């Protein structure tokens, strides 16, 4: 294990927190610490949390801070090797066979290899950040394969041999926790559970992310979203919904809708489930942000 206390000029969780803030991502202490440790220890960062708390955004911001290109592998049920690792460029191989006629041609050279996210990262471990998104959606065979990949950082291609990363690449995994991840995978990662941010931080996030939202509006929306999250909803609003709600209501207000009404008309960006809307319906007025701005 190689420990690198300073990575890309970042030598402490505090420095990383500041750098992330510079990339428009406001991280709390826990996230900054976990991310810093994952970088310093060269281990993958596993982010879990409810949908919409900014897991993917965190990984992207980390890429921006480290000036690395984010290579994203979106997981889904039934994801297979061809989508995750590599594929041969068959049309090109076919053409090469036809063109070569009697000459010798090597069909399994680098020219014919189409790199998919995992191979792409192995080939450029210093310039990329691998984001394995929504790992909980893949099936457990893929999870077991990832386990192997994340410990050795190598891929064997029968026709070409083994490709190994010179240095362990930076890897972030996200999970919505629709199912539990395998214990062995969690153990291999630095773990952080992203919670809904506290009201002050969330208001700051709204101000940083949304354009032209007044401070009072942001605070009111955050307070209201906090109340909504306490309700037993099928799909509680995430941070993204908070930002959009503030933005949408501000837009409607600018076009002449008075305040509480602007929030009510924009409720569709905060609550995106008919059952939730019906459930909240009768008490909506009490939960809406009050007079703002």
């Amino acid at each position, binding site marked *: 294990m190689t420990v690198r206390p300073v990575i890309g000029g970042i030598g402490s969780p505090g420095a990383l927190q500041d750098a992330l803030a510079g990339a428009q991502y406001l991280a709390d202490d826990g996230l900054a*610490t976990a991310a810093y440790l994952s970088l310093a220890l060269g281990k993958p960062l596993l982010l879990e949390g409810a949908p919409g708390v900014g897991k993917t955004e965190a990984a992207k911001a980390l890429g921006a801070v480290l000036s690395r290109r984010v290579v994203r592998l979106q997981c889904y049920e039934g994801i*297979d090797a061809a989508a995750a690792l590599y594929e041969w460029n068959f049309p090109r191989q*076919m053409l090469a066979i036809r063109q070569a006629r009697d000459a010798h041609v090597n069909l399994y050279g680098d020219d014919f290899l189409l790199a998919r996210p995992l191979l792409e990262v192995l080939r450029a471990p210093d310039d990329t950040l691998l984001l394995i998104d929504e790992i909980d959606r893949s099936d457990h065979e893929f999870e077991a394969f990832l386990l192997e990949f994340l410990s050795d950082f190598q891929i064997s291609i029968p026709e070409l041999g083994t490709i190994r990363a010179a240095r362990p690449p930076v890897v972030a995994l996200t999970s919505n926790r629709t199912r539990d991840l395998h214990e062995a995978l969690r153990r291999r990662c630095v*773990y952080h559970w992203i919670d809904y941010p506290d009201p002050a931080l969330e208001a700051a996030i709204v101000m940083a992310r949304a354009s032209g939202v007044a401070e009072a509006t942001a605070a009111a929306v955050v307070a209201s979203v906090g109340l909504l999250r306490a309700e037993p909803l099928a799909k509680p609003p995430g941070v993204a919904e908070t930002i959009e709600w503030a933005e949408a209501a501000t837009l409607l207000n600018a076009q002449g809708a008075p305040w509480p009404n602007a929030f009510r008309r924009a409720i569709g960006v905060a609550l995106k489930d008919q059952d939730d809307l019906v459930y909240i319906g009768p008490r909506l007025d009490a939960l809406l942000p009050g007079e703002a701005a």
Partner: protein
Amino acid sequence: MTLPRATQPLVGFAGLLRRHGFAISPDQTIDFIAGVGLLGPRGIHDVRSAALALFSIPPERREAFDALFRAHFMGAALTPPATGDDGDEVAAHEGAGETTVEFDEGEDEAGEMATAAERLSRRDLALADDEAIGRFARLAKARLPRRRSYRRRASRKGDQPDIRRAIRAAARRDGELTTLPRRRRKTRQRRILLLIDVSASMRAESDAALRFAHQLVQSAERAEVFTLGTRLTRITSSLAPAGRAEALARAAALIADLDGGTRIGEALQAFLAVPRYAGFARGAAVVVISDGLERGDPAAMIDAVRRLSRASWTLDWLSPLAGAADFAPKTEALAAILPDLDRLAPGGGVNAIVDHMLELGAYR
């Protein structure tokens, strides 16, 4: 190699966590020590952050973790966790390998076992039940749910051209392709996990469920069967003999809590606490046959069902009571777990169970 003195409390903390049921690997301990060093540490807060991140503590165990952390580093008194050894714990039971029926535990118990075995194996089976079980045996292979495998295989009727083989064939024939090889996804049968409530309130129904369980173990490639009552019993291996009477007699000998009380929640908790068992639920079609009349703590049952639902592919609850037209889940526990269930369906009698199981593969 001796450890530096300063790291001893850190190593000790890893050991403490391990003793309290957190799975901590030596690798994680090494990383934890390195992580604490990296962070300064400027204070006890840094040690906690490093432990949370590097021991991968999930949010629902954070409370237990914090208690241990305070006890270890800040000298707070350690209150035993609620699931301590109070003798009242639901334990997991499993026959060792080839289960042999032992009758050496006193006259009384042996008599009880014998009657239970008798009741299960010799009761006249209704003709309709046999017909339903036969139907399941015929259709199981085709109708049980299957999952797609990660790999593909060559197949004449595949949905995708097997270009890799095509290129190889073409290379042998100067670029001419005579037939297009195809390939398709391999499929495997999903594991079926059957959890049967054998408490007194299910007395009339558990026989049917166990007879079905025997056929399930016979017909399915991958199946696991457990009984829930005042304790948890794995009966999969005892159901392995092809003869139903023999298999059920073996199972009955193993189930010490037949027609006893109901503590489904705690039995499910016990199931999830054994890592090997909990692994059976992963990606499986889980079917619970129970009336959901919980005598124990409903919170335990709600929590267990939620965790079971997350680990499984589908989670179905078959209740004998659900057959009635005016059925609505009345008990607090059953109403609370509804959102976590994929289906709540009638489960009274072999016929209803077979009907449901044969439909498993067709939905979702």
